């Protein structure tokens, strides 16, 4: 064990670190873009939509990410009609193959996480919104999505951390992200412990960052609950109620 080596390899891992961060951020962002509409459709009463999306999430959650990555990378490369199509210019590149696979996989998990959050929104809140005459779109935007997302947030933060670690699989399709770079350095130095410990430290740093950001986001989104908790006395409640009714111009 050589402590100096751990410090020495940290800068060498920098380039791989950037690729890891980029892959994770991009696939989480695209995954979320996929998941929001799918989660809404998944919770919609429409049978067709709900079951089609269930099939997608079932396939992507039911098979290992590595298998999906190999299917998209090596699988696509085997088929002549894909190689001669326009899509090959994208599927030819390992980076895009990884991004597509990770996004679809992350999207599937996030869809189910968000669905859980949306289902957990109290029906009373939605009925109240209906009673106030909000349209479907407005209800989704003002009530269902914010409340659902808040409820799903802890599970979602977990999923983002898992995505960070899953991005290491990109090294199996020649992408030199952090794990791939670490393995390359191990091959040059033959010192697996030091190099992998350095890589693990960086992963821990990233995870700390993600957990911290989501922690703040959670507190931010739960602000209204905290305030209610602090001033939980009847006078302020009455005053608040009076304010609301005044604002909505409804007679008490």
């Amino acid at each position, binding site marked *: *064990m*050589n*402590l100096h080596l751990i410090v020495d390899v940290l800068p060498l891992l920098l380039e791989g670190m950037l690729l890891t961060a980029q892959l994770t951020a991009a696939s989480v962002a695209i995954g979320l873009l996929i998941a929001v509409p799918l989660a809404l459709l998944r919770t919609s009463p429409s049978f067709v939509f709900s079951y089609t999306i269930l099939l997608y999430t079932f396939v992507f959650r039911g098979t290992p990410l590595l298998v999906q990555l190999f299917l998209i990378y*090596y699988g696509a*490369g*085997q088929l002549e009609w894909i*190689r001669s199509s326009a899509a090959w210019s994208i599927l*030819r*590149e*390992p980076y895009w193959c990884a991004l597509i696979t990770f996004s679809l996989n992350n999207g599937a998990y996030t869809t189910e996480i968000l669905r859980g959050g949306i289902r957990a929104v109290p029906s009373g809140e939605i009925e109240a919104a209906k009673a106030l005459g909000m349209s479907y779109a407005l209800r989704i935007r003002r009530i269902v999505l914010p409340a659902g997302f808040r409820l799903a947030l802890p599970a979602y933060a977990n999923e983002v951390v898992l995505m960070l670690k899953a991005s290491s699989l990109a090294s*199996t399709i*020649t992408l*030199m992200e952090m794990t*791939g770079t670490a*393995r*390359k350095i*191990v*091959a*040059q130095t*033959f010192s*697996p*412990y030091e190099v992998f*410990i350095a890589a693990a430290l960086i992963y821990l740093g990233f995870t700390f960052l993600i957990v911290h950001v989501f922690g703040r986001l959670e507190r931010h989104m739960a602000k209204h609950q905290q305030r209610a908790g602090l001033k939980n006395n009847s006078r302020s409640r009455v005053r608040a109620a009076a304010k609301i009714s005044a604002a909505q111009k409804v007679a008490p």
Partner: protein
Amino acid sequence: MNRFKLPLAFLLAALIFGQASAQEGKTIKIATEGAFPPWNSVDTSGKPQGFDIDVGTALCQRAKLTCEFATQAWDGIIPALNVGKFDAIMAGMSITEKRKQVIAFSKPYALTSNYFVVRKSLGLAEMASHLKVNLSSQVEEERGILQALKDKLKGKIIGVQGSTNAEAFVREYFGDTVEIRTYDKQDNLNLDLVAGRIDAGLADYSVWKAFLESKDGAVAALYGPRISGGLFGPGIGIGLRNQDRELAERFNGAIEAIEADGSLKAISLKWFGADLVSN
């Protein structure tokens, strides 16, 4: 090193090293990769087979050792030897100065002869493949051949198996003019060469032979000179732990014996269809 500051690290090390090293009289466990045909691969039942395995079996017979082959991923094969999971490596591993810093080697039991293979569809200008470049010698003419090769491959995507001499060579000699992709297995490199994700690959002749003779291999061909020496080392040897000197001696004696009676050459002809063992 202050060992009191590292209790956790030592606990970890103790857990891993605790498996202990080779004991005399016991079965010699030989690690092979199992994905580097015809050197070594696994048959349909998962048993290792290939040149390395046949040579190993012949050597163990000569040296009166009980041996057992097991597969281990190439990436971790040297650490696995050093922590005692195995007692020897026979995986088409070239003897190099760098590797010698961490493990010991027997005498070479085969030679190295590295070639580039390029996709035919690239339409690169002809370059004779009977030329030879020995990186250890400093002949002007050979440096010229290497430079010509470098100019022709400029801007191309070159695939190599990671953690190999081929990777080290490409990085050192062509790193500034080509894009390098590293693969964990030669099989995957071949797939990408066929798919056209990479333009060329560098590996040992024995590895290419199997690929070029396959149906998929028709899209590519050997290109440029045979490259050996220097980074590629004196040849293929058995990897052993530094302290296992007795085992090394027994293997060395056995290698000389099977070289002398022609059985090593017979195994080479069987697996490579060529003599890759005689100088």
